């Protein structure tokens, strides 16, 4: 009985993870520009891989393997932001026509809010 519960839990989490991977792959094809695509890929990087690996850890052969799988998740979540930050920085610094692809705000957010308040 308990094995079936484990199986169903694993199946649910893995299917959710696979659906999120699918949506992020769709996003990678749908969006027009590299940095927008990066947001879609970040979705698969965080929640997709997290759900898949937690689901697999539920039905791992023994306790230490499950702990190791969770360690993979933690390592991945620590390293993924660094790599996507560097990629984004590469894109921002090498692209000479940034204004074509996004709205660039020159002022900080706090300053913009103050100006809006003054206008109102």
């Amino acid at each position, binding site marked *: 009985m308990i094995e079936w519960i484990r199986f169903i839990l694993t199946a649910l989490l893995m299917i959710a993870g696979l659906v999120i991977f699918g949506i992020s792959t769709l*996003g990678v094809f749908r969006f027009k520009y590299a940095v*927008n695509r990066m947001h*879609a890929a*970040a979705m698969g990087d*965080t929640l997709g891989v997290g759900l898949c690996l937690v689901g697999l850890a539920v039905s791992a052969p023994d306790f230490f393997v499950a702990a190791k799988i969770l360690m993979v998740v933690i390592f991945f*979540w620590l390293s993924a*932001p660094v790599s996507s*930050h560097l990629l*984004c920085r590469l894109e921002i610094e090498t692209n000479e026509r940034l204004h074509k692809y*996004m709205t660039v705000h020159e002022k900080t957010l706090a300053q913009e809010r103050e100006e809006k308040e003054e206008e109102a």
Partner: protein
Amino acid sequence: MFFVYFALWVVLNGKWTTEIAAFGLAFAAIAYFFSCRFMGFSLKTDARLMIRAWQAVRYGVMLLKEILNANLAVMRMVLDLDFEPKPQLVKFNSGLKKERHRVVLANSITLTPGTITCLLEGDEFLVHALDESLVEGLDDGVMITRLKEMEAGK
């Protein structure tokens, strides 16, 4: 830190026997001595970290919730096929004093889908957001208030 090393050793070994535990204690002690000697850890900072560990756990739970919310938002954007995102590149000052907290904030911003930190110089963050609605909670959202609380309450 000693316990972290020990747990890492045991988990990577994948078995629990007396031999492994004894070797683990020895190697964890060596690694702890090394990190005290060369990386600026000490018993005093460790004690402070232990006291603040529950704060870190609370921050982690909050971060998980944020990641879930942002994932749902970005998923809705991807699945809505008529929707065309309006990407924004915004700047803001965090007001955090310590380098460590700034790095944690930058990593959390990048980890939530929909926002990526591009540059972090001094106190100025340059953040790319997928849409206007995602810019809202950047410089006065939950994460930054929690970090400020952590900074004030030490």
